[in-house]
């Protein structure tokens, strides 16, 4: 798959962050970036079309990013998705939880352009989405 064909879903309840992450991804050449303001909205998007990568905030209400990760990993048609947690949450016990639930990588705010590039590319290459 080419980078321009990769469908990316950005989930964050803070519009400022959603827009910033989308703009960063577009700078790297991703063209298909969908924004969702909640885990519920994300689930609806995932039903509509196939995505290859989800970048998701942790602290959202009523459904958290961790809940969305569990939903994805528990769903046969979605479980291979690349899932990156994008969050300011760095409490050790919670990071451990995310890792145990199958997060592919973790972007801690504040992140740099280079970190986003490295982690998104790295995860997509590792899962064989990009050749």
């Amino acid at each position: 798959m080419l980078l321009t064909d990769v469908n990316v879903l950005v989930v964050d309840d803070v519009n400022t962050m959603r827009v910033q992450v989308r703009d960063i991804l577009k700078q790297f050449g991703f063209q298909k970036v969908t924004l969702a303001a909640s885990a519920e909205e994300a689930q609806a998007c995932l039903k509509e079309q196939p995505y290859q990568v989800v970048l998701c905030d942790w602290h959202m209400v009523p459904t958290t990013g961790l809940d969305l990760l569990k939903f994805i990993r528990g769903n046969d048609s979605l479980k291979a998705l690349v899932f990156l947690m994008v969050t300011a949450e760095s409490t050790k016990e919670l990071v451990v939880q995310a890792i145990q639930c199958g997060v592919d990588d973790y972007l801690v705010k504040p992140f740099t352009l280079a970190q986003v590039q490295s982690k998104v590319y790295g995860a997509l290459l590792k899962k064989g989405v990009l050749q």
Partner: protein
Amino acid sequence: MTVSGIQEFIAELGGFAVTAEETLRQIEADMEKNRGMFSVFSDRMIAIRGTAQQLSLPKIAHIARLGEEIAMKGVTAEKRPQIRKAVGSLWDALTTVKHLLQHHGEETAEEHDILVNRLEATLRAFGGARQQVDADEIERMLREKK
């Protein structure tokens, strides 16, 4: 950091502040029954902190961090005076975060320092912050898992 980014964030904070203020009012109305709502406040503080860090607003991020931790202590506080203390500190934190956002271009070092000292003292009295890990440590934990 772009000016438009900060302006959007300030506008967005209006919604967070309404939620946070309403939460504190509900806790004040029935401290024992509603102390679980401190987690709602903590979630809003995390959202503010993350975005403030990303927009290079470290003072706001620092106070939001302290507010987040004090709120989490409030969830498990057993004594009414502790809950009251947490609520009072969180009002201070929220008010100051709003002030700093609205005056982010101005020099507010003195009032910021006074509040930070007070919040840090409160957090220490509650037993200190939860253990954090940095990006390198998270990287190591991810590698170990794989």
